[in-house]
């Protein structure tokens, strides 16, 4: 704040010419800048190209050493499809937390609602057999409706209080699915969900458990659509209203923004993305049960958003992918690696320690915790922050140096 009152002095011209005036930037930077500018003008196209490049490159990357030692290409592709679920969760939560600034700790509730919607739409339990593709839309809409319903009571709350209430809703929803046995089959969950069908497109009919490819491509497709919609919303009057509410709710209301509808919209759009993820997840696993949607899912999604960089859709997606792969692949491989070293059991006081027997997957939440602590201390804006978030948390060194120069010149 003190920097601001001192900011009365900088000469008018400095701001405008600051960026372009800095000479001798390397050629790759200029090229990068041009690519950025192009991406800014053709967002949807660059999203499609970017995701397509990822989707094409990933299957080949896993064939290269050392990754090919860790599993077959099929295993990896199946893992990527699961990672895609979390990418969807993270970019949806990013709308609520990153754009509108509403800390939501019960986000898994909408994931559960999406998944159960599919379970009701296409399983022997309900007797219905609605195809997967329309159910995607239905799941998103149902989740969005619950987003509004569960968001409405929290509207007057801010900060800690909002977090606690959403945490409560996040717990309530799986517990309802657990205890309403007659309608949800309780702990056992609903099984035998129909697999999606591609109607013979690309020679694929049913998706099947043994072939992860259609799932991988489907999730990439869903992510691409979600990306495009979210980017467009971010760049509209609604996106601006979200940011305005996050920065100063009172000022936003005084500028004519209906804070109630705008917040509800953030909740419902976040929830609908989560609903998409839920439908896809349910169809891939072919079973839904309440224990899949506990607090750990909400927490994991939030950790992904924070680590990736709140407010930046690409950043959050990358964060989700990295975190998921470390958790699902990295920890497993670390265990196998340590085991392969054959470290002899040694005594540590009264305990005998056998490093080879440690199951590293059990330590994932320890690692999340550590990663979050380190992140908050070293890089609070996340790995790939949005421009906004970065400028909020600290002045970049360049800017600081610039303003120092100005002070010296003055």
């Amino acid at each position: 704040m003190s920097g601001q009152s001192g900011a009365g002095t900088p000469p008018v011209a400095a701001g405008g010419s600051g960026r372009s005036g800095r000479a001798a930037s390397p050629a790759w930077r200029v090229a990068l800048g041009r690519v950025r500018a192009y991406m800014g003008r053709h967002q949807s196209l660059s999203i499609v190209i970017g995701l397509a490049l990822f989707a094409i490159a990933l299957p080949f990357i896993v064939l290269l050493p050392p990754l090919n030692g860790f599993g077959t290409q099929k295993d990896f592709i199946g893992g990527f499809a699961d990672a895609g679920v979390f990418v969807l969760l993270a970019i949806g939560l990013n709308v609520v937390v990153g754009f509108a600034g509403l800390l939501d700790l019960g986000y898994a509730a909408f994931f559960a609602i999406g998944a159960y919607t599919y379970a009701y739409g296409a399983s022997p339990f309900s007797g219905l057999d609605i195809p997967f593709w329309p159910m995607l839309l239905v799941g998103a809409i149902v989740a969005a409706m619950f987003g509004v319903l569960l968001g409405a009571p929290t509207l007057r709350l801010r900060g800690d209080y909002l977090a606690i209430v959403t945490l409560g809703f996040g717990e309530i929803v799986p517990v309802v699915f657990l205890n309403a046995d007659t309608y949800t089959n309780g702990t056992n969950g609903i099984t035998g969900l129909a697999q999606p069908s591609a109607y013979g497109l690309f020679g694929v009919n049913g998706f099947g458990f043994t072939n992860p490819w259609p799932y991988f491509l489907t999730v990439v497709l869903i992510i691409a659509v979600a990306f495009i919609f979210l980017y467009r919303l971010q760049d509209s009057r609604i996106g601006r209203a979200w940011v305005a509410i996050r920065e100063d709710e009172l000022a936003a209301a005084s500028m004519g923004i209906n804070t109630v509808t705008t917040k509800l919209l953030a909740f419902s759009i976040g929830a609908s993305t989560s609903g998409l993820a839920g439908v896809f997840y349910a169809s891939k696993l072919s079973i839904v049960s309440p224990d899949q949607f506990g607090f750990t899912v909400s927490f994991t999604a939030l950790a992904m958003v924070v680590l990736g960089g709140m407010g930046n859709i690409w950043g959050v997606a990358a964060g989700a992918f990295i975190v998921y792969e470390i958790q699902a692949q990295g920890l497993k491989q670390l265990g196998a690696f340590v085991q392969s070293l054959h470290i002899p059991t040694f005594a540590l006081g009264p305990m005998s320690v056998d490093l080879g027997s440690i199951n590293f997957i059990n330590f994932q939440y320890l690692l999340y915790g550590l990663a979050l602590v380190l992140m908050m201390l070293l890089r609070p804006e996340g790995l790939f922050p949005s421009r906004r978030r970065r400028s909020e948390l600290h002045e970049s060194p360049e800017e600081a140096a610039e303003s120092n120069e100005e002070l010296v010149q003055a």
Partner: protein
Amino acid sequence: MTADAAAPVLVAKRVTKQFGGLVAVNAVDFDIPQGSIVSLIGPNGAGKTTFFNVVAGLYEPTDGSVEFAGKEMIARGRRAWAEPLVWVLPTVIVMLLGVLLEQLTKSGAELAVALVIALGLLITMFLLAIIRPPIYDRLLYRLGIFKSARPNDMVVAGLGRTFQNIRLFKTMTASENVMVGMHSRLHASPLDAALRLPRHRREEKEADIQARRWLAFVGLKGKEQETARNLAYGDQRRLEVARALASKPRLLLLDEPTAGMNPSETAQMTTLFGRIRTELGLTILLIEHDMQVVMGVSDRITVLDHGDKISEGTPEEVRRDPRVIEAYLGKGASA
């Protein structure tokens, strides 16, 4: 200007606002004629900003009412007890019908259907009450229930404001700030935006042009892409004015717009007020401590002290009023 040129834009009737035992504003009558610049002055803690916040819809007054553009917008709620009845009434009716049909046919299905419909209606009514769309407000009005307008309703009605301590959206650019100001005048729905329908694209293009125009109007040309927090102090104040103007108000509330400015910046700001009135035809309500500004631009001045209106009139009259001198300088100074 037509016949209603002299009609007041805003009429405050005996507005009172109490915070616990403290009477911040006490039965203040106030009206602002169309096209005028009216100032509100008074020592610190006189209740000026509280009065402002009541008018802007931030506080519900303890007593009294505010009429804006000929319509009562702000007052203490009337028949507020009846509102919950409106929420449950449709539900109760449907349930009663269900029970009645059940009694007639004895089939049992009607009750279940009625229950589902009733629950849906209850949820819908609650959501309506939370969102408060114009339809809901009109329904309440028809039933004789009055609810004070919210700040965003006042902006839609045509009231723009700035803040005493600058409240810009700091991480947004100058032009984005102005575009947030336009929010209530833009109508693209989320669907329009997500699908980039022509309506959204046309509106965004127009909004961008308008934002540039407003920034140029207040003298911030060339700083459209500057982040608000990086603007100089005086520019931030001007950006606040541009943001308020972007909502196309009829009445502009300016809360100490020249606080902390040097004399030349203050002079520029004063010129800007004049241009807002002459070029845009807006009415201005000004809170200001700088007496030179107040005496220079105001058509009329109202003086508050400890929540009471102690004087009102042209700058000349107020300047000579012994009660005003007393309030500012203490007893004995007027003698």
